[in-house]
């Protein structure tokens, strides 16, 4: 960074950070829900208005389920995903977020197969956003569901391999690895304090090896294996 003006210019470029437009609009509607009645109620009977609204939301809900990043209904799908996650218990949220990331990879695989290359970068970006969100949730959750996380992380690895075999490099963000490494570290610390049989000590050694090789998924799998031997 050269001088003060250069720095100020860079700070001002951070204005590009903006909230999601759908979220902005839905939040306002949600806050104003208890406000005085809206004007359309004057010319539509309340029961009819309710039925129409339900039908409309129903149709959008159904069609949004199959939307992929870049589609006009995708923002609705995103809102539905977020709402579903907010109803889950905390320990289930990281794996649900990873499931969404995996869905993006499945979408990506389909568009790459169909050679719809214009959609690739949008889907990749959404995938990376999901992974970043999952990593951030993972750091905050006290006791994440390790079994589900391993399952989703493996699915993601498999799908990445499938996509890369078609010639598209899935550029990774590093937040997830950091979050997984912290879970492994915590588990290793707890196992080191526990009294273990010889078999279990051997597995713990393998867990440490996987951790040192940065293969956190494998380390977590062995932690689960060790848990099943208790």
């Amino acid at each position, binding site marked *: 960074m050269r001088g003060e003006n250069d720095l100020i210019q860079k700070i001002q470029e*951070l204005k590009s950070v903006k*909230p999601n437009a759908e979220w902005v609009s839905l939040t306002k509607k949600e806050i104003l829900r208890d406000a005085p009645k809206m004007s359309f109620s004057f010319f539509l009977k309340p029961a009819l208005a309710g039925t129409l609204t339900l039908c409309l939301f129903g149709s959008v809900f159904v069609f949004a389920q199959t939307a992929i990043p870049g589609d006009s209904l995708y923002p609705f799908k995103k809102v539905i995903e977020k709402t579903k996650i907010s109803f889950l218990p905390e320990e289930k949220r990281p794996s649900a977020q990873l499931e969404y990331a995996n869905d993006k990879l499945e979408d990506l695989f389909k568009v790459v197969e169909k050679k719809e290359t214009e959609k690739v970068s949008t889907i990749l970006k959404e995938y990376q956003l999901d992974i970043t*969100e999952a990593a951030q949730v993972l750091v905050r959750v006290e006791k994440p569901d390790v079994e589900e996380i391993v399952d989703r992380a493996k699915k993601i690895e498999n799908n990445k391999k499938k996509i890369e075999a078609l010639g598209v490099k899935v550029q990774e963000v590093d937040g997830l690895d950091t979050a997984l490494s912290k879970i492994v570290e915590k588990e290793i610390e707890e196992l080191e304090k526990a009294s273990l049989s010889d078999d279990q000590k051997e597995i713990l050694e393998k867990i440490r090896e996987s951790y040192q090789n940065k293969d956190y998924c494998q380390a977590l799998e062995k932690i689960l294996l060790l848990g099943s031997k208790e």
Partner: protein
Amino acid sequence: MPNIKKEFSKVYDKYIEKIYRFVYFKVGSVEIAEDLSSETFLKYWNYYKKSIDPEENYEEIDNSQAFLYQIARNLIADHYRKEGRTRIVSTDDFVIPDDEDIHAKAKLDSDLANVRFALNKLKDDYQNAIIWHYLDDLPVKEVAKLLNKSENNTRVMLHRALKELKRNID
């Protein structure tokens, strides 16, 4: 009686981006920034309704922007107080290989990520001063009011904050 929904909408549309960005730079997560920003406006709305009701004895909001920032600051402080959370600083910027000028794009993204990261390392008052003055374009007078300091002190603080930010980046 004024159309309260319309009045609120105006305030919401004018400040939602600023409040969201302010919260986002403090918490580093889209999900938490959305939660805290919506809670900020919900609290504003609930207060606003009472402030115009003559039966409720609530003071009128004379500066919506300052009021919103104050609610957001309290919510952020509560967020970090709960369970002794620490700040999550993310340097992730999403580099998508979608154009030929990938190196230039990656450089630009990484510069911005560095500024974000360095900003997050500043003490709270410095962060606020920089965000409000340089990012949200608030005049020094307004920033001084928000920080509860004199204009002169605020100018000095802005100067020091920039210097420290630069040091963090270099």
